[in-house]
C-alpha cells in the first residue's frame, strides 16, 4: 500500500505543476493476488502491484486528460504536461456541458479495509484452493476456478481543494466443478476474506456437479423458472446499467417515459448504494462527490436514474455521486466518455422465501444455476440472449426431478421482473464486474427458451 499521506503528496505535486484553470487527479492503486486452478491443481498463480494517476486539466470549457503509472517526479511532470497540452488544443471546441470541477465536499468514510485480507498469502490461498481440489477429486470431479485477494486505494484531489481517499480490500472466489457430463458452480465475494467460505462454496459446486449427471434434452419453450442468485445477478446488472442518466436522457434505456409507473412485480426493488457495508463500499465517485443511494425500482415502480454532475446539469436533475473517471487503468471500459454516469453498486432487495419453497411452489419448471454469455438484443425492453450453464434441473410436482441439458434463452429482463412471483430471503454476494453485486433467488412465472445445445 502507498497510503493516504504519500498519495496526497503525489496528487499535490501534480496540482502544483499545473497552471490550468482547473486540475483534477484521480489515484488508482492495486495490489492484487490471484490463484487459479483447473483439473484439480493450481495452474496459474499471479501477483500484481500497480498504481496510476489520471490527470484531468481544464482550460475554460476545454478538457484534456493523461494517465501514467510512473509516479516519479519526472513521470508526474510528464503526465501533467500531457493533460495541459490536451486541454489547450486549438481544434477542440468549448464543451458547453462541461460543469467544472467540484468544490470540496464532506464525504463520510465507510470502512472497507480488512487487514487479514490484505495480508492473505499465496500459501493461504493455495491451502484453501487445495482443499477444494482434494474434495473434488475424492468425489470423482474436476475442480476449476479462481481465488483473489486484493487491496485497492482510491483518491481524488482537485485544484479547488477537494481531497478524498478510500482504501479497500476484496476477496472473491469462483469455482466450476465438472464431471464427464455435468457441472456445478459457486461464487462468493466480500471485502473481508473471512466472509468468503471457500470450503462451503467448493462443496456447493461439487454437489451441483454430482446432482447434474446424465442430463436429458428438453424442448425449448416458455417455462416457469427458479433462478439461483447467480442467475438473478445477471438480470440485476443488465437492468441497473440502464439507469445511467446519460442513457436515459438519450432515449437508449428502458427507463424513459416509465418513471413513476409500475412496470415490474411489487416484489422487485432495485437500487444502487455505494455506501452499503454489506457490498463493496466506495463512498465517493471519481469526481470526489459523495455517493448517494438511488432507488432505481421501488416495489415495482420505476424510480430514478443515477447522475454525475455533467448529466445532472444537462438534464436538471440532482447529481447522485455516480461519475466515472475519464480513464480507468484497471477497467478501461468503465469510463465516463463511453458510459456516462454508472451504477457501480447495484443490489436487489430480499423477499421472504427459501429456494426450497420456490421449488415446492413450482408444478413444472426449471431451476437455473447461472447464465452464460448474455448480450443485449434490444435495449428498450432489455431483451437479452444467453445460455444456461453449470446446472439446469427440471422441476416437477414441486421437486427437482431431472438434470437438463443447457438451453438458450431470448427474454426481456423487464418482462421477467414483471413476472416475479417469489423472492429469496437470502441475498448473495459475488463480484461480476468492478464491484460486489447483491442478488436473491427468484421465482419467475415464465422465461422464454429459444434453443438448445448438446450438453
Amino acid at each position, binding site marked *: 500500500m502507498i497510503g493516504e499521506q504519500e498519495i496526497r503528496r503525489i496528487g499535490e505535486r501534480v496540482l502544483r505543476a499545473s497552471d490550468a484553470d482547473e486540475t483534477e487527479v484521480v489515484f488508482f492503486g492495486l495490489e492484487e493476488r490471484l490463484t487459479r486452478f483447473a483439473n484439480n*491443481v493450481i495452474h496459474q*498463480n499471479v501477483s*500484481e*502491484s500497480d498504481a496510476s494517476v489520471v490527470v484531468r486539466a481544464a482550460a475554460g470549457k476545454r478538457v484534456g486528460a*493523461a494517465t501514467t*503509472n510512473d509516479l516519479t517526479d519526472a513521470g508526474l511532470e510528464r503526465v501533467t504536461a500531457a493533460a495541459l497540452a490536451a486541454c489547450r488544443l486549438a481544434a477542440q471546441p468549448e464543451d458547453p456541458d462541461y460543469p467544472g470541477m467540484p468544490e470540496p465536499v464532506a464525504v463520510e468514510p465507510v470502512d472497507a479495509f480488512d487487514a487479514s485480507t490484505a495480508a492473505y498469502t499465496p500459501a493461504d490461498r493455495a491451502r484453501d484452493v487445495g482443499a477444494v*481440489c482434494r474434495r473434488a477429486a475424492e468425489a470423482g470431479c474436476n475442480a476449476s476456478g479462481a481465488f483473489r485477494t486484493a487491496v485497492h486505494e482510491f483518491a481524488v484531489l482537485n485544484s479547488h481543494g477537494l481531497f478524498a481517499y478510500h482504501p479497500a480490500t476484496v476477496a472473491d472466489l469462483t469455482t466450476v466443478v*465438472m464431471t464427464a457430463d455435468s457441472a456445478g458452480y459457486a461464487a462468493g465475494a466480500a471485502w473481508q476474506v473471512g466472509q468468503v467460505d471457500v470450503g462451503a462454496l467448493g462443496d456447493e459446486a461439487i454437489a451441483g456437479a454430482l446432482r447434474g449427471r446424465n442430463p436429458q434434452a428438453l424442448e425449448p419453450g416458455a417455462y416457469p423458472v427458479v433462478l439461483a442468485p447467480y442467475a438473478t445477478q445477471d438480470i440485476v446488472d443488465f437492468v441497473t446499467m440502464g439507469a445511467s442518466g446519460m442513457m436515459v436522457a438519450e432515449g437508449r434505456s428502458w427507463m424513459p417515459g416509465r418513471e413513476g409507473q409500475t412496470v415490474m412485480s411489487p416484489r422487485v426493488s432495485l437500487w444502487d448504494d455505494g455506501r452499503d457495508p454489506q457490498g463493496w463500499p466506495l463512498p465517493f465517485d471519481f469526481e470526489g462527490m459523495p455517493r448517494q443511494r438511488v432507488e432505481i425500482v421501488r416495489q415495482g415502480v420505476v424510480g430514478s436514474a443515477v447522475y454525475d454532475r455533467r448529466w445532472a446539469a444537462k438534464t436538471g436533475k440532482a447529481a447522485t455521486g455516480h461519475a466515472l473517471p475519464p480513464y480507468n487503468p484497471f477497467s478501461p471500459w468503465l469510463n465516463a466518455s463511453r458510459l456516462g454516469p454508472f451504477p457501480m453498486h447495484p443490489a436487489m432487495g430480499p423477499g421472504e422465501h427459501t429456494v426450497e419453497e420456490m421449488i415446492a411452489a413450482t408444478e413444472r419448471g426449471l431451476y437455473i444455476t447461472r447464465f452464460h454469455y448474455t448480450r443485449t438484443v434490444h435495449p428498450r425492453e432489455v431483451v437479452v*440472449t444467453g445460455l444456461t450453464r453449470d446446472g439446469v434441473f427440471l422441476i416437477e410436482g414441486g421437486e427437482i426431478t431431472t438434470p437438463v441439458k443447457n438451453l438458450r434463452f431470448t427474454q426481456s429482463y423487464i418482462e421477467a421482473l414483471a413476472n416475479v412471483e417469489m423472492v429469496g430471503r437470502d441475498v448473495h454476494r459475488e463480484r461480476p464486474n468492478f464491484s460486489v453485486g447483491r442478488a436473491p433467488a427468484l421465482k419467475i412465472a415464465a422465461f422464454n427458451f429459444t434453443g438448445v445445445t448438446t450438453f
Partner: protein
Amino acid sequence: MKELTELALDTAQARGATYADVRVVQRHTQQVAVRNGAVSDLVEVETLGFGVRVVADGAWGFAASSRLERPEVERAAAEAVAIARASATAGGSPVDLGAPEAHVDTYRTPCQIDPFSVPVDDKIGLLLAADAAMRRVSGVRVTEGALVAWRENKTFASTEGAFIEQELIETGGGIVAYAVQGSEIQQRSYPNSFARDQCTGGWETIVEMDLPGNGERLAGEAVALLTAPACPCQVTTLILGATQLALQVHESCGHPTELDRVFGTEAAYAGTSFLTVDKLGTFRYGSPIVNLTADATIPGGLGTFGYDDEGVPAQRVPLVREGIFVGYLSSRETMAQLARLRGEDPARARSGGAMRASGWDRIPLVRMTNVNLEPGEWTFEDLVADTDDGIYMEMNRSWSIDDKRLNFQFGTEVAYEIKGGKMGRLLKNALYSGMTPQFWGGCDAICNADHWRVWGTPNCGKGQPSQIAHTGHGAAPARFRNVQVGVR
C-alpha cells in the same frame, strides 16, 4: 534494459526457479473521441512495468510490478518463486515446456505514417467533420467517433537465452450513429462495430477509411432502420458480410481451437471446447470449401507480431483444411501436453506461437492471432445473383455462444432481403442462430480475394484476472444454407 532482465532471471534462478522469463512492456495509447459535436475523450495513456514468470518445484508463479527499479525487480522475481512453490503444494504434474526457444531478435510492425506523428488537432478536426456529417441527417439522436493510436515496446528474455525486442504500432478509428424513435433504437457503425476497426499499421489506414465521407450515409441508414420491417423468422439462405463473418470466425473457430480451453484450464471462466483432441485430423468442421488459418505473419493484421509472449516466432498454422479440423492455437506447455497424449515425444513439441499477454501485469495465455477464413472464388455480385431467396446480414450488434462454442446467436445492425438474385428491402433487428459444425457445413460459397481483408477485434476477453486481446480476422462475404433466422 538487459541489466534489469538479467537481474530478474538471475534472482529467480538463485531462488530455485528451473525456468524463468521476464517481459518489460511500455505502452503509449492516445484516445481521441467526439460525441454530438463535442470532444468527449482526449487522453494520453502511458503504462510501464515488468512481469516475471517462473517454474519452481514444477509449478508456475508470476509477479508483476510497475516500479522498474533494481530492488523491486529482485523482490518481484523472489515473489514469483515463492508463489510457484505455493502452487506446487496443490499437486499436479511438473510443468513441461517442450523444446527450448532461444531466439535473439528485434521486430517492428510495418507502419507508413506513425499515428503519433499526426497532430491531435488534425484528429479532432477529422472526427468533428465526420460527426457533423452524421448530424446533418434528421432523426439521428447520438453520434460518436473515435481514433486510437497505440505503441507497445516490449522486451522478452528467458533463462533459455532468448532476448527479443519488439515494437508494435496499432491505429484504429470508427464512427457510429444512433437513431431513436419511441421504443425503437437503431445504430449503424463504420467501418466496424464496437466503435472502431483497428490494425497494426499507421495513420494511412485512417485516411483510407474516409470517416467524414461515410458519415451521412451511415446516419441515413440508422434512421431508415427505425421504420424498416423486422427481419422475418424462418429457415433460409444467409449471406454474411465480411465484418460479421469475421466475428463468426472469432467466436466459432478462434476460441474453440485454443488448446488451453481444450485442456480445461479456462473451464471456470470462458469455458471449454467441443474440438477435443480425439477430433484432431478427422472431424468435419465445415464444408470442403472451408479453410481456416491462424496467421500471425500477415502485414497489417491486429494479431500480427514477430514473437509471441513466450518468445516463439510468429507462424501460419492451419486450423481447418477443406472442412476438416486439423490444428490448434497453442503454447509451449499445451503442445508438450498434446504430444504426450498422442504418444509423441514432448521434448520435440513446438508451440504454434499463440501465447499473448494483455500487458506487463498479466501472464500470457493461448490467444488468437489473425484467425482467417481463406478466400474463395466468387464475386459478391455473382453470389447475390446466384441466390434466389435469402437474407444478407452485416455488422455485429449482439453476440452470444455457449461455453463449448457450439450454440450461437448473433444479431446484426443491418440486413437486406434477397429475392430473385437481387438485394431487396432493408430489414431491422436481424438475428441468426445455429450450431457451429452444422453452420459451417452449410457454407457453399465464399467470395474471392478482392472482397477479403483482415478486420481487427480489439476487445477479446479471456482469463482471470481478465485480459483484453487484440486479434485479427480475415474474411470475405460467404453464403450459408438452411440457417435459422430470427427467434421462434
